[in-house]
């Protein structure tokens, strides 16, 4: 294996400075995609190793987190997707149906009433709502809101046109808003 982009020590140092600070972000995404710690570990490790081997291809000055997430998603699509895990809702209709059932069950953790706008104590609800989003909407939302990537960067990470990013974010957020509003109503935080 020929080393490119400088000596090994130099590559290691740069990798530790530029890439490893994003490890938690990658692990978080790996946990969301793989849905269990063992597979997340495998996915993260494969991603880190591949990124390290191809670190010479990373363009200095671009968003390293976006570059790493691109590798993570590629790895995931190329073999870490598990078939046994619980399938999330695949259509908007499914999603609404699931939300409805969830609301009727009323099984959310108790927390102090707050307004939807301040959002305190909404962790459970946010997770529940995200978990029921169609996968591709959820991924787009997390990349823009949590990882703070631009639509352009997300287009690269997910390998989809920028217009598709835009519509997934838009529809995903609308569904999320609906679900959170539903939860908030149910808890008496806001009135319908």
């Amino acid at each position, binding site marked *: *294996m020929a*080393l490119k982009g400088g000596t*090994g020590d130099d590559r*290691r140092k740069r*990798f530790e400075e530029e890439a490893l600070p994003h*490890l*938690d*972000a*990658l*692990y*978080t995404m790996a*946990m969301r995609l793989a849905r269990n*710690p063992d597979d997340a*570990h*495998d996915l*993260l*490790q494969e991603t*880190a*190793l591949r990124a*390290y*081997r191809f670190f010479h291809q990373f363009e200095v000055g671009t968003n390293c987190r976006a570059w790493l997430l691109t590798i993570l998603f590629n790895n995931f699509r190329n073999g870490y997707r598990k078939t046994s895990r619980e399938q999330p809702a695949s259509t908007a209709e499914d999603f609404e149906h699931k939300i409805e059932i969830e609301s009727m069950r009323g099984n959310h953790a108790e927390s102090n009433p707050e307004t*939807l*706008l301040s*959002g305190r104590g*909404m*962790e459970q609800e*946010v*997770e529940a709502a*995200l978990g029921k989003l169609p996968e591709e909407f959820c991924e787009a*939302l*997390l990349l*823009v*809101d*949590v990882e*703070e990537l*631009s*639509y352009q960067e997300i287009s690269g990470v997910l390998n989809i046109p920028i217009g598709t990013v*835009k519509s997934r*974010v*838009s529809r995903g*957020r*609308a569904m*999320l*808003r609906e679900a*959170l509003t539903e939860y908030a109503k149910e808890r008496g935080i806001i009135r319908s």
Partner: protein
Amino acid sequence: MDCDTYIDRYLSAHVDGELSGDETRAVEKHLAGCANCRVRYAEERAVKAMVRERARRYETPVQVRGSILAALDAVDSGARAGDRAGHADRPGFSVIRRARLWLPVALAAAAMFAFVMLHGGNVPPAGAVPAFDSALERYEIFNAHFVPNVPSASPADISDAYLGHKMPGLLWNLQPSGYRLVGGRLERLDDGSLAAFTFYRGEEGTILCAFMKAHGMQMPEGATQIVAGHNYYKYKGYSVCLSYYPRGDFICVLVSRKTMPYFIQDILGSSL
């Protein structure tokens, strides 16, 4: 611009700061005259903020982080060995290249099977191998009584301790084969060099892994099987597995009392 156009086409991009200058001016003009859309905009921002602040984030477990660093080490040392010897990509090292702190033995087992070479029935016995004798001697002592002398609460602790003494930080994961990691010991051998001993206990037996300085040691004759760079020997009534750490500076000797087929099965993982 009317309300539907704003909400359907611009709202989320507006909140995400993804509108062009012209688009921004157009939506601001609409919002200035539309209280409903101003509320809608505030809600959209709240949803975005909620995802940003409330979506669960995970911290990388220490063990996972440690194993990734160990895997990077393996790439580094593989690259250095390759620079020197020019054959770092030979199949025997693939396991250690892919290694994590817990070597995922089962992972590569299927691929390894292709490399299994069964030697004929007339295998010459392995001659005296001092490194094996050192490992065997410890194996017997540890079977009777093993006391770790490095922090052994987790594989990462052991790995850190080894690395801290410039020993390989890779550990075998024998869990899929039913072995529990008992702990690690660093000891000086008769020649004064340091060796790292990791001891595993299963329901049907024990395995000792010894990392020792290679001192230019050649692969001894008489291996009963060679599986992807790991040489297996029947030696003085024990089953022994010998491999080189990619750096070339260390050997890894695994010892068990199990018979050869079962020992190999344990090492390769239960999937074989």
